[in-house]
């Protein structure tokens, strides 16, 4: 074989390998997690909700995108009113037994019928910790997405009109769609 023929063969092999590598890089790049944090807010107690929003604001301050998925008791954190109209007896009971706004959230421990939560709020205020309502609004203002789970809303009889106006609707696939490309995902 002549030298020039060998050279052509080498170049062709190299080009092929290069193309394979390029394809592999594209594939890998598609799987790199983005600068995102995804949080499932399942709990509705003041202390747990506080933890969720502190992590969210911290992530936003670090330049991360934040999506928060509110489901079951977590919906307490994004409720702003209570309606009984158009609900069946069990839904009404559920409505009356869950807080109609963040003001009514209790503590996960030592709640003592709300006295614990009031004491915690007072202690936070004395120590200059942001109150939960301001923290939630700040999280939203900083660009977090709030998504509510339609299924748990329906089960618990919570109308969309009882939630904040700036909520998006989404289910498990919406959460997973975000979570698989996030660097951090939490269940609170």
């Amino acid at each position, binding site marked *: 074989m002549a030298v020039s023929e060998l050279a052509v063969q080498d170049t062709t092999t190299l080009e092929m390998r290069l193309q394979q590598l390029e394809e592999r890089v594209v594939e890998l790049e598609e799987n790199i997690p983005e600068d995102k944090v995804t949080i499932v807010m399942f709990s509705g107690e003041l202390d747990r909700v506080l933890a969720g929003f*502190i992590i969210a*604001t*911290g992530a936003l*301050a*670090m330049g991360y995108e934040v999506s928060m998925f509110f489901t079951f008791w977590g919906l307490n954190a994004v409720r702003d009113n209570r309606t009984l109209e158009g609900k069946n007896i069990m839904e009404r009971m559920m409505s009356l037994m869950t807080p109609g706004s963040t003001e009514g959230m209790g503590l996960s421990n030592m709640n003592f019928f709300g006295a614990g939560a009031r004491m915690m709020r007072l202690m936070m205020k004395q*120590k*200059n910790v*942001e109150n939960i309502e301001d923290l939630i609004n*700040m999280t939203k203002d900083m660009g977090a997405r709030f998504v509510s789970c339609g299924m748990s809303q329906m089960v618990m009889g919570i109308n969309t009109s009882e939630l904040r106006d700036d909520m998006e609707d989404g289910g498990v696939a919406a959460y997973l769609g975000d979570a698989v490309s996030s660097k951090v995902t939490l269940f609170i």
Partner: protein
Amino acid sequence: MSEQTYEISTTLDVTGLMCPMPLVKARKAIMDLEVGQVIEVLATDKGSIKDFQGWAKVAKNVELLAQNEKEGGDTTIYAHVVKRTK
């Protein structure tokens, strides 16, 4: 943290504020800076030391130049010197 001289463009006072507010306010303030400018953040929250280190590690647009402790009466003030890099 690298040893280098820097010129502080602006100072942000977050003394008395607790986690996550020093970070949140610092982030807001740094976005108002030009790239390359330096901000000094004065905090009393002890956790802010690690918080600012974490911020600089994770965020792509900031560099932590120095962290100094200053005695401010009966409380210690932590001065974080942060540069906007992007």
